């Protein structure tokens, strides 16, 4: 069946497109994800893959080649945004213990895997997807090594369907060189962590044990050490959660010592202070939440807003992430973190890259995801206006791996339900 549609119909007619195999989006304002843009773009999708990205003015369309052609009327096309380092899908309601599946007992838990706990039917996910976030890294919390994350679609019948990259890396919470005193609002003393060296030694010992185990030919199976193996041959990334300068410098040494192929720093608040040495270490950063308060009284009031720009200027590879208070529901605001970074120094397309292509590069999935280029997965969305500004982020079409996704969720349903109540009342 061939369809020629304009976007006005999308919400209603999703059902009839479910089987679409050859989709052509016309007349869109394309944000590739790699820094480039294209007006009046044509984006062709066949069997879930992007097969064509061209300027419509220079191309003649053969309508017969497509079973679905959608005229975007100048709306914006974006690659699916990414929510790395998130508990999205691992919890539903923060306060209800029964719904929390991201933090297990133990200090070194590399064997604990998020992939199988990922709830593809999460109500929270349904509200995040509709703002353009289509990929997440389901990430465990707690302990020293929290566990192993997996990169997932915000879509799928089950976790198997949703998996993009199984067991992409382990998450290591680097000890803090300071230790929290823990008052709430009064000047809250934080002190030098006197156990810092001892805690580092503990991590060192675990990695030594793991690397010895990885090299050994035959041993009794140790689930934890087994899970570590892939960190040494580059099949798993090591995500170091670290913010302070002391931590970052120590991570740099640690990475060298254990010859870790794909290290990533999550947080990296102080990274801008190190500059060239850090750049040369070639460790990418998933930056601390842009919408957070400065660490110190004296920090520039807008320092967290400016951090992306500061790293960009120094040539440090980075992307944005969103961990913090209420991170699951807040994942839908990731576009606006990029928006703020844009207000504070990044160009529009640099800001976009920081939540799409750069994220995918750091996660190691950029061959298939992160930009709208021929050969990549058709995981993208269309917004009525610029998607990094909350006024104009209005998602009108979502494709995940070439399949149409609903642009509605239970919240829009409640909206319509009660709108109807008032409309009926007025009558």
């Amino acid at each position, binding site marked *: 069946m061939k369809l020629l549609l304009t976007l006005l119909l999308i919400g209603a007619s999703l059902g009839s497109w479910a089987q679409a195999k050859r989709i052509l989006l016309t007349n869109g304002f394309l944000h590739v994800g790699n820094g480039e843009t294209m007006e009046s773009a044509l984006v062709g999708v066949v069997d879930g893959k992007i097969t064509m990205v061209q300027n419509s003015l220079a191309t003649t369309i053969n309508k017969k080649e497509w079973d679905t052609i959608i005229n975007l009327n100048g709306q914006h096309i974006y690659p699916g945004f990414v929510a790395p380092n998130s508990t999205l899908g691992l919890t539903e309601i923060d306060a209800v213990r029964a719904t929390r599946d991201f933090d297990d007992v133990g200090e070194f838990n590399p064997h604990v895997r998020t992939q199988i706990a990922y709830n593809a039917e999460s109500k929270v996910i349904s509200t995040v997807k509709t703002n353009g976030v289509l990929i997440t890294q389901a990430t465990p919390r707690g302990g020293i090594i929290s566990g192993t994350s997996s990169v997932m679609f915000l879509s799928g019948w089950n976790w198997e369907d949703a998996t993009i990259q199984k067991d992409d890396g382990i998450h290591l919470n680097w000890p803090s060189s300071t230790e929290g005193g823990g008052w709430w609002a009064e000047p809250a003393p934080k002190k030098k962590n006197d156990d810092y060296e001892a805690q580092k030694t503990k991590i060192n010992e675990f990695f030594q044990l793991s690397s010895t185990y990885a090299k050994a030919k035959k041993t009794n199976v140790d689930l934890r050490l087994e899970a570590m193996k892939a960190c040494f041959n580059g099949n798993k990334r090591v995500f170091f959660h670290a913010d302070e300068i002391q931590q970052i410098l120590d991570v740099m040494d640690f990475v060298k010592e254990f010859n870790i192929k794909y290290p990533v720093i999550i947080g990296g608040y102080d990274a801008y202070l190190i500059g060239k040495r850090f750049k040369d270490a070639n460790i990418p950063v998933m930056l601390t939440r842009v919408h957070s308060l400065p660490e110190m009284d004296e920090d520039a009031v807008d320092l967290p807003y400016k951090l992306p720009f500061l790293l960009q200027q120094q040539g440090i590879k980075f992307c944005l992430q969103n961990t913090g208070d209420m991170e699951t529901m807040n994942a*839908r605001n990731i576009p606006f973190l990029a928006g703020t970074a844009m207000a504070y120094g990044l160009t529009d397309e640099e800001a976009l890259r920081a939540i799409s292509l750069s994220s995918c590069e750091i996660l190691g999935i950029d061959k298939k995801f992160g930009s709208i280029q021929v050969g990549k997965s058709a995981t993208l969305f269309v917004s009525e206006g610029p998607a990094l500004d909350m006024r104009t982020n209005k998602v009108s079409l979502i494709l995940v791996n070439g399949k149409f996704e609903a642009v509605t969720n239970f919240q829009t349903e409640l909206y319509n339900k009660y709108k109807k109540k008032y409309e009926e009342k007025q009558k």
Partner: protein
Amino acid sequence: MRLLLFLLSTILFSGFSFSQYAPLNGVKDSKSEVIALKNVTVYVNSNNKITNATVVVADGKIVDVGTKITIPSGALEIDMNGKTIVPAFVELYSNVGLPSQGERNYSQRPQIESSKKGSYYWNEAIRPEVEAATLFDVDAKAAENFSKMGFGFAVTHVQDGIVRGTGALVGLGNSDTRKQVISSNSAQFYSFAKGSSGQTYPSSQMGSIALLRQALYDLKYYSENKNAEQSLSLEKWKNNQSLPVFFKTEDKWEILRAAKIATEFKQNFYFVGSGNEYLITKQLKEAKSTVVLPLNFPEAYDVKDPYLARQIPLSDLKHWELAPSNPYLLSAEGIQICLTSLGTKSPEQFWKNLQKAISRGLKIEDALAALTSIPAKLIGADELIGSLDRGKLASFTVFSSDPFLTEATLLESWNQGTQHVIKSLPSVSILGKYSLNIDGKNYQVEFTESNEKPVGKIQLFKSNVNTIGKKDTVALKMAVTLVQNDISLQFNCDDDNFKGSINLHAKISNNGSVFEGDGTLPNGKWIRWSGIKTTKTDEKKEPTTLKLDTTFIAKTWFPNLAYGYDSIPEVRTVVFKNATVWTNEKEGIIKDATVITENGKIKSVSTNSTATPTNAIIIDAKGKHLTAGIIDEHSHIAISKGVNEGGQSISAEVSISDVVTADDINVYRQLAGGVTAAQLLHGSANPIGGQSALIKLKWGHTPDEMLITNAPKFIKCALGENVKQANWGDFNTVRFPQTRMGVEQVFYDGFARARAYKEEWDNYSKNPKKAEGTPRKDLELDVLVEILESKRFITCHSYVQSEINMLMHVADSMNFKINTFTHILEGYKVADKMKAHGVGGSTFADWWAYKFEVNDAIPYNAKMMADQGVVVAINSDDAEMGRRLNQEAAKSVKYGGMSEEEAWKMVTLNPAKLLHLDDRMGSVKVGKDADIVLWSDNPLSIKAKVELTMIDGKVLYSSADASKSEERNTLERARIINKMLESNEKGEPAKPFVKKGRKHYHCDTLGEEGTEEENLH
């Protein structure tokens, strides 16, 4: 006067005398004694220092002091050789000889009622019945420590609770307890700290304030009403009312908080300070306050590691630098001060800090008065103590030289005529050169510096390994101990004679010229040795003199932390030209407009060319957007010590306005986000919480200046999971209510009681004579009555439609209106009912999923409520989001398609309406407060940045100033760190750094000190 001379040993070295009531065990001891101390320099009092004087002591008192004195015959005359005598200091804040505060009773289940037996006050933190004198026992060790500081008297009290009972004036000798108690009831002590009480109430500083006020009203009621219920606590308290009150504080703002209570009850409090009072000298001076200042100045930080050093808050660095100047800065303003040893770790530190305070400018006479006559006067004991004038108790301290001018040694402490030797100086001089004979070998030694701390060096001769016949001379330092007539020496010998430790001890004879004694050689051989003085050196006459510290000391900033001002910006006339103005009025958004502010108000808004006033600051706002300041209807910044008084289900008596602090950096950060006013709300831990503070974000101003004048009165109420303690763990199942059903009843009950209370008072005021006395004043019910009479408005934390509906019914049945539902995430379900009731909604743009009751929260809520005619605001409830409320407002354009103008009103005009402040704030209209923000862009755009924020006509933030302040922060930090490094290098004590945590109050933060648990809103 009896002039009898008793045995010399008794006079000088007996430490004991007994209470006059006690039966005698043994033979009668001497009762009186006369001693004349001759040739002394004496500080008779802080204004009178005399040299070559004589002090006559008899019967434990000063009989005479002066230069031309006839020494009574028979007096024991002692030549003091020019030593200095200083009156014994008076310590006002101490618990010497008393038990220290017990551990707080802790149980996992909350303790709501008092656990104390007896008919005492209902709250264990109110303990006026405690009398120090009934618990006092001489603590010889502590007394010795005080003596070494120069203190001879202390007012000691049990440091536990908010009302702590009475303190006793005691002498600090080590004799019989009964004899040491000079006055058993000298003063009362109050504080804001609840101490060891395990009761849930109060759990915050505002709760402590309310409790103290209620207790004082209860005291008044008790004193005036014969029929009042008996109370042991109130009875004792009533009897203590003539005693002075010392109020212990932990921060400068606490002094101002306590002062308000003093004013309310027409009392005078003396404040025991915390060391940062130099930041409120103006207020202290105006109020003619007296402050007892601690000398425990902060130690330097260890700043050798720059990674750690950079984390030390600038405020702490600045305080380190300024703290030693605290006594001077207050004294220089004419504020009456006392000094306390509170917090000083040792006598050495006390003296070092006292001298430091003097070196910073504190006058010696002021320092002395602050330690003697003033404290004596405050406790009404100046007849007996506080100076060495005739008739006063003979308690004083003897120093080797003037301790305020020189590095002196504290030698003796006299306690009511009894001498106590702290340190005896050697009676001979060994300074000079000696020739020693050690087991037949000859050595030359020399002693230098002072007899008190002699430095000894010995010359050794050792054959040179390389050149035969050549001897190397080595000067080796010896350990020397000189006590009276005994000398001991130790050195590790390495010469041709001996290898190893040589230990010598000898008696000194012939006025220091001969040593004779025994010792051991490295091989353990017991030998005799001797020494003869060959050259005599005189001791250095003048001890080291103290100098004024003239190094540059920075001025305080307003506030005294990063981004503080040198001086508070003034109100200026400002002309904004060519601006795009979001008026929030019928004019809508107007382009190329001129806005003029004058005297803190908006003077004109127009698109025509207007005459520019003289002396105006002219700002070209071309391409920029000018708006009214953002008003955050729900904020918890700038609050001290607790946002929740969760100890009881109703805590209407507490008020956030009592605990506003001006030192929160988030005030500045929110200014940088365009926020100019906020409602600081009590948390949501109980159904009827506490009163709000409505503030303007006037950075650099005092808490009182931040409070909006004549602000409408508000109170926070709350519903749902937080008030029924649903997420507080399995032990918090005691307090009523635990269900939504119970919540309703708490409201009905509270308001019913309030009605009855109102009636009682109405009846009383109609016919005061007939009534059986004034009804009891109840601060909690007073506030509930205000609500019933629509004189106080409710902002109610709420989530689900059932509870929202319920509370509107409660209010309707009592004939008042709920003013605002805050959070109100299911408001969209009952917006029609809300409109009918006339309540507004202040909500989040898109929060949900953080607890069960927000499962149906949708981001379309704001728009849907607005569509039904409800006045809707978007608030933060979060220090971070508070600085980008413009973005949050913009989300309603996305969710539901609200117009930009209406969206913008949700963070400006609408919160002003909800707070009943729209007659002065919320729009750019002539006559309204000049609370104005200049934006780089459309304020709802993601690209918008604040360029300038003005409050009441003062420019309190500009992005340009912020950059300058950043540089200034850096310079100031570097300057002080350098000073601190010098201190580190000198080996002065240093502490590891302490960094401010990044914690903030949210609705459900409990207690003064929370944990790092996740926040639930």
